[in-house]
């Protein structure tokens, strides 16, 4: 479906230095630095996948999305999506894709949402029947009925994002690019958006590529992660695999009847201790969680036990650290 091969892209950025003299000099001679936004990016995505694209700010996520959506032409490398080269056959290609920029609206600000939808219908030349069916479906699944007659400027961010996503799906795209679709949304809206992305992926088989900083998005949606940093592709694999690599540690929290002395558990590290509650981290490659609990129950009268995986955010931080980002 999507194949990128050795995509590289660099930008020339004018150097700006502080100071009046430097600024005056810059009027005549501009010094440029070359920023390599993408370096030799290679991956392929199959039909119907949801792929999470992650990386710290400025890593090249948006640039990749722009290359894949045909806005930018890379310096080197090839990209084939549904048989098209995005930047070559732009108009034919973009009919097949939907793009949502989380920070920019594609709706017309002062008019009701439905008017924007109708204009998009004309822009994409969507047949009336298809358009009707899609609007009905989207209205139902995204709960838009009360939003459609409202001018966009009066919508909350969460409401607007639902409309944005709906707008990008009116023309039945096969691939959907979402650039930070949950940025700035409250918890309820985030869950609604995630749920919807799952639904369209399952029911319509739309391939979804999303960038995000919210690891919960990834956890809820993506069965595959691409991590990019300094323009390089650093990780390509499933979240489970990442967990196995970095998430070998589990946290065990135990509550017990009062006990005056700290207990020791072979293979586990004590994080905190009170007379009724203790936290341990267990490296599962050295000690099984069950063994640790067994040791604990021998020494203590346990009331409650909770075992948690290392939060995904921490795994990502470790991953960033490993690549010194």
């Amino acid at each position: 479906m999507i194949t990128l091969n050795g995509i590289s892209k660099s930008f020339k950025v004018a150097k700006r230095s502080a100071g009046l003299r430097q600024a005056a000099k810059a009027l005549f001679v501009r010094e440029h630095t070359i920023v390599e936004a993408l370096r030799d990016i290679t991956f392929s995505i199959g039909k119907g996948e949801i792929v999470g694209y992650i990386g710290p700010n400025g890593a090249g996520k948006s640039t990749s999305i722009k290359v894949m959506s045909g806005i930018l032409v890379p310096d080197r490398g090839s990209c084939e999506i549904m048989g098209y080269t995005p930047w070559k056959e732009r108009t034919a290609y973009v009919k097949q894709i939907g793009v949502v920029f989380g920070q920019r609206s594609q709706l017309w600000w002062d008019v009701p949402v439905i008017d924007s939808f109708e204009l998009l219908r004309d822009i994409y030349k969507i047949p009336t029947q298809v358009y009707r069916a899609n609007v009905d479906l989207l209205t139902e699944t995204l709960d838009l009925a009360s939003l459609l007659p409202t001018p966009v400027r009066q919508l909350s961010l969460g409401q607007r994002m639902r409309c944005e996503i709906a707008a990008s799906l009116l023309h039945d795209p096969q691939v959907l690019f979402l650039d930070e679709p949950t940025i700035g949304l409250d918890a309820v809206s985030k869950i609604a958006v995630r749920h919807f992305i799952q639904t369209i992926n399952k029911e319509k088989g739309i391939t979804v590529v999303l960038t995000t900083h919210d690891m919960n998005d990834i956890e809820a949606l993506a069965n595959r992660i691409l991590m990019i940093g300094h323009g390089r592709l650093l990780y390509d694999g499933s979240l489970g695999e990442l967990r196995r690599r970095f998430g070998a540690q589990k946290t065990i929290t135990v509550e017990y009847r009062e006990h005056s002395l700290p207990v020791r558990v072979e293979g586990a590290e004590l994080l905190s201790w009170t007379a009724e509650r203790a936290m341990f981290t267990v490296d599962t490659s050295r000690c099984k969680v069950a063994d640790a609990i067994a040791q604990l129950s021998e020494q203590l009268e346990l009331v409650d036990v909770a075992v948690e995986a290392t939060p995904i955010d921490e795994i990502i931080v470790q991953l960033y650290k490993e690549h010194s980002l």
Partner: protein
Amino acid sequence: MKMYWSYLRILFKSIAQYRLSFWLLAVGQSLTPLTGFAGIYFMFERFGQLRDWQFYEVALCFAVVHLSYTLCEAFARGFDTFSTLVVNGGFDRLLVRPRSTLVQVLGSRFEFARVGRISFSLILLFWAIGNLDIAWTAAKVVTLLLMIVSGMAIVAGIYIVTASLCFWTVEGLEIANIFTDGGREMAQYPLNIYGKWVKVFFTYVIPYGCVNYLPLLYILDRTQGSGWLYMLTPLVGVVFLLPCLLIWRFGVKHYCSTGS
């Protein structure tokens, strides 16, 4: 075409949200050419004529130039304000839609408030025609329409070139106003009152003279020899548009390969 109509509808609906602002703008804007015209009126009041040009002849010239200029401002506003579209990233959005960038930029803005200036120019046009003793023929009517359309083409061309420059830099584009506003101020008087280099520049480089002065001679029966040539000179304006469109295409290509 159908899509452009849809664009206009949605833009009109947007404007309708701000009624008072719209009417104030429309009325206020029509005052600008009025003051310009008042200048001409009082000048003729004082001096009687300009070279061998009579008041109503100059008024006709003024009206035609202002009409095509304001019409173009209304239609091609998207190019006039194109730098904002590049700065706020709206152009990326246009690129992911399956239509030509040209039509989409045209459709991104329409200055409805220009209706004030347009009607002022129309009234002036008919008033000047009513007071001139012109033997109207079909050919002359066509010429007059050509003058208006071609005038629009030239201004649009300059807008498009200026907008194309936004792909390289968004700073210092005020210079284009010399050619649009400046050109308009020049062209509202018959070209032969100016010095030689002005005439040459506005005939061969930016051909305002071809769409305004020369065909005006034909309409006023001041031509020597064949009138056909004078009648068809406005087409130069359309020709002027072609290289401008090429520059635009080149600019879009450049944007795609540099981005942000």
